[in-house]
């Protein structure tokens, strides 16, 4: 399977995606959704402003060894966009100056495929920041040069967050590709071997659940219990927390929704499940998201839709703390994905 970009799919263009989200599939306004902004106005949350911004999320490249059917980044082996060391230096400069950032969340693609990944991690650690790496697990087994990643993660006290759409082979492989489940299990066992996910080790291993289809996640707490029981019983695997994340209707997941005829029903489901408490706690309020080319966004999803921050300087080289903290967050119809049900963020549900 190729990325949307390599296929020449019109959805590789962010403007096309936004057009569908705002005007419906046929671009004829037949299917108009209540604007997300109106929902926020009704609960006194518009304009949406940041609260304490403490997470610096960096997408260091769209290259990935997997091609997952729901990927909002449209990542894959054919994607060559990668953050340069120059841009990494610009990020480090901001992290050094702005002490409000406590956590650096590294994502991709497979972030480990960036040739400067390890150097970047070491430099961030020197600044005393907590590091999260969004590891797709299979990268650990993809090539000999990645086999020592569990040890590298351990050496730098990295929090590992990994997608495992389900604790059964069928659902996982359907979403992420044949063989992904088996390799993911092996990689989790390798992480456990060095202490990840073990009680009192201090090495955090968190898993991510994404619905494999056009539906919302069930209760995160119940799901975590089931995952823990099943993975321990079947494979002897332990982990810390499970994050249940809602699929946002953009990029490859939007393509799936359209191809399967689920787009309208899914959007209606998201809107029906709009939760004001979740809206108050969305991740964009405490996160700054930086793209592979150094441009700044309110979240990873806005990044993929090319909705840059509403501030005078849009590139990390022009970072001004006051502008970032006082900006209004850029919203669109995909934002319904983060406010449905228990809410959704990179850390899972935002309400209990």
């Amino acid at each position, binding site marked *: 399977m190729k990325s949307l970009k390599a296929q020449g799919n019109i959805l590789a263009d962010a403007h096309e995606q936004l057009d569908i989200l705002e005007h419906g599939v046929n671009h004829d306004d037949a299917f108009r959704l209540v604007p997300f902004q109106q929902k926020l106005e009704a609960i006194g949350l518009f304009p949406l402003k940041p609260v304490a911004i403490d997470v610096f999320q960096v997408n260091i490249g769209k290259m990935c060894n997997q091609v997952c059917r729901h990927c909002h980044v449209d990542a894959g082996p054919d994607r060559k966009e990668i953050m340069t060391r120059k841009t990494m230096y610009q990020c480090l400069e901001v992290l050094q100056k702005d002490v409000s950032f406590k956590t650096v969340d590294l994502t991709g693609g497979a972030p480990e495929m960036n040739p400067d990944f390890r150097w970047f991690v070491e430099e961030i650690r020197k600044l005393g920041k907590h590091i999260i790496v969004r590891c797709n697990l299979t990268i650990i087994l993809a090539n000999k040069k990645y086999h020592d990643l569990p040890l590298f993660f351990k050496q730098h006290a990295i929090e590992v967050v990994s997608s495992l759409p*389900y604790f*059964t082979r*069928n*659902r996982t492989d359907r979403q992420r590709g044949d063989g992904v489940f088996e390799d993911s299990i092996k990689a989790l066992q390798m992480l456990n071997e060095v202490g990840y996910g073990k009680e009192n080790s201090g090495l955090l291993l968190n898993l991510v659940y994404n*619905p494999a*289809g056009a*539906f*919302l*996640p*069930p*209760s995160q707490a*119940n*799901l975590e219990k*089931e995952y823990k029981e099943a993975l321990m019983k079947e494979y002897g695997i332990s982990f810390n927390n499970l994050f249940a994340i809602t699929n946002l209707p953009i990029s490859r997941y939007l393509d799936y929704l359209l191809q399967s005829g689920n787009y309208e029903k899914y959007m*209606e489901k998201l809107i*029906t499940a709009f939760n004001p408490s979740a809206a108050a706690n969305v991740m964009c309020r405490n996160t700054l998201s930086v793209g592979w080319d150094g441009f700044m966004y309110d979240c990873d999803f806005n990044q993929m839709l090319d909705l840059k921050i509403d501030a005078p300087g849009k590139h990390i080289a022009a970072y001004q703390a006051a502008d970032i903290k006082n900006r209004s967050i850029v919203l669109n119809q995909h934002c319904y994905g983060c406010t449905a049900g228990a809410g959704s963020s990179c850390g899972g549900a935002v309400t209990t």
Partner: protein
Amino acid sequence: MTNHYYDAADLGKFGSIGEYQKDLADKFFAWYGAAFADSALSAKEKSLIALAVAHAVQCPYCIDAYSSDAYEKGWNEAQMMEAVHIAAAIKGGAALVHGVQMMNKVKEIAM
């Protein structure tokens, strides 16, 4: 009046059933919510029971709702179909067991 009895869109309107009798609807939905909450049985287990019952009572709205709900809650296709077979077995058995009544009657009247 529509010219058909079932419309998938009506499922989404179920919440408005209180329009003609709010108090009773409120009581129904409060009880319904409590019945489906995690308790002695998990919400996940209850969802599979609901799917089977939906087939037994042959309610298309309920089948629609609980096919989605059961799958969302993590039941797989084989498990869901087995639940449908249980509903069918009970329905089939329920019809067949009345055959004993028939046999009793025949034996009563036959020479």
